[in-house]
């Protein structure tokens, strides 16, 4: 039973996930780029900005969360660290797919040092991510944000919390050798059916991540790409 479950999550679901994720995002962007048929004037914040200035403003916004800082210092600390942790662990997960031997050579790091580095970076970002999610959940449960919250908002936070907890469990409470995972993902990328990794926590983690990716194009997560696009409209 559990083998077949792991097999489906590992060999079937990923193809559905990829299709829905990329297809869904493409569908979103195509819709957003339509021009409204009704004559709504969309000049929002006029000012004589050059293309360079607009670009600089967008990059500054994406990197520093300047507008959040302006609005609330506490939320800024939480959300900036939260998003930074995402950036760090997404980068860290790349080690599941490839080993950056050239980089380690360049940095003169031994295999043990790389693992320690990974443990520190992954552990720190995973912890910050989990605490950040909890903080955001508490904030959402309090007024006035509570009044704006819909079931989808809570679902997303809980889903991410599940991903964070299962990830941190593997990081802190299990000893993970990377090789079987690399082999698994290598199979997957080469469209070869393979034997699932024997780690039910991983299977659960992988399942939740895929649910997240499938839900992504239909959720408020589209702010990741939409936010940048719409800043461009607002600042023209």
């Amino acid at each position, binding site marked *: 039973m559990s083998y077949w479950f792991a097999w489906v999550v590992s060999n079937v679901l990923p193809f559905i996930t990829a299709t829905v994720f990329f297809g869904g995002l493409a569908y979103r962007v195509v*819709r*957003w780029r339509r021009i409204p048929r009704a004559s*709504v004037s969309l000049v929002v914040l006029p000012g004589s900005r050059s293309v360079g200035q607009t670009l600089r403003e967008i990059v500054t916004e994406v990197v520093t969360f300047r*507008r959040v800082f302006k*609005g609330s210092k506490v939320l800024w600390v939480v959300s900036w660290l939260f998003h930074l942790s995402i950036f760090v662990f997404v980068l860290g997960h790349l080690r599941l797919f490839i080993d950056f031997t050239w980089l380690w050579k360049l940095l003169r790091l031994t295999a043990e040092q790389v693992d320690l580095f990974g443990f520190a970076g992954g552990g720190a970002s995973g912890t910050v991510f989990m605490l950040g999610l909890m903080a955001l959940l508490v904030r959402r449960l309090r007024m006035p944000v509570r*009044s704006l919250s*819909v079931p989808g908002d809570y679902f997303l936070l809980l889903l991410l919390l599940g991903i964070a907890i299962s990830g941190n469990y593997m990081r802190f409470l299990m000893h993970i050798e990377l090789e079987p995972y690399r082999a698994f993902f290598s199979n997957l990328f080469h469209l070869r059916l393979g034997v699932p990794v024997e780690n039910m926590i991983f299977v659960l983690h992988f399942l939740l991540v895929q649910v997240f990716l499938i839900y992504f194009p239909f959720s*408020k997560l589209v*702010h990741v790409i939409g936010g940048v696009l719409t800043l461009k409209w607002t600042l023209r």
Partner: protein
Amino acid sequence: MANEAHTATRQVVESLREKVQGPIEAWLDICAHCGLCADSCHAYVGTGDVEHIPSARAQQLEKVYKRYHTKLGQLAPRLVGAEELDEEVLDRLQKMAYQCTLCRRCTLYCPFGIDNASIVGVIRALLAEAGRVPAGLQEHTDTAYEKGNTLGISEDEFLDRVEWFEEELQDAVEDEEAEIPLDREGAKVLFVPTPIQIMRFPTVIISAAKIFYAVGEDWTMSTKRFDATNFGLFSGDAEKTRVMAERLVDEMERLGAQVLALTECGHSYWAMKYGAETWLGNALPFEVKNIVEMIAEYASQGRLKLDPSVNRDVVTYHDPCNLGRKGGLIEEPRAALKAAVENFVEMTPGAEQTWCCGGGGGMIAIPDYEEVRLASGSPKVEQIRRSGAEVVATACDNCKLQLLDLAEHYDLDVSVVGVVDLVADALILDEDRD
């Protein structure tokens, strides 16, 4: 009766599809309900009513849109939070849309720059189609549409008033030849006031005339079009919005003027400078300027001589949303004021981040909303108090009416004047004018 209501709702539902497209749809999609907009909105901060949180407005529109135009919303409305457009929802939308002043302050605080004013603009358009424009605003819009100006002032009344303005001008500049030109074809500048100024704030027109006189501007007013305002825009009625903009364009063409000089008024500037092009489908063949912008130009060209010592009180400037944040005129009014007064102080947060007065977006014309309007103005009142100003200068009738109401309601000891008035008072007129 029920059938009629049903038809009206169906029309709204159909036009939802047309209006929620492109950027509007994207904004509804990406709003992550983070609530950062809450504390940026004077309506929410002033009233504490969560239905005034900008994100709540977007969400309400999203819920209705989902119900009719997405598969999931049709199949499982509860699951995705889709809502039917019934009387209750229409009422809520009306309150949310018309008690928002479209000031765009929340846009500055939204991490994604979601433009709530555009979203509320869409809601207003839907409500206008459903015949749900609040009383007061609807009447003003109809009067303007039918009689050519919001107060229904006749041409004779207008001429009477202008005659009096001209006498005031002649006394002020001590020149019996000084005039307020009417319908002068080929004049470079067409100056358009508002009906409120003609009836209640006449000094704005007299001061503008005085400034034009001082710099020797080649200007005129029109006996046909003496209403710069666009109440179609406030009510959300697309057709009336277009017609009102078109009237000014036609009059510019008839008189052959090159510059449309709009009086101290926020939304008319935004309407003509940024909106008209979209509504009329082509770029305007003339320049659109606000009077404070022209004053700043005259000052920078050295054409205005001002003596700031006549204005000794502590003066602050309230940025009308449509001129500052939404219009890009931040420096111009300040340049004019700094040249005309001795003690100029800024409010904090200032310039494009300033608080809205709470009276814009047509709210001042809706008697039922008075209580909310006064509550919405409280962040502005605090801001004025902190500045220590004795005089609040501004350049918009809506703001002025609201600030006067706020001063009375909150026992705020300030006077409210137009930028043009302070500049006109400080004017030094050459003795040997030729």
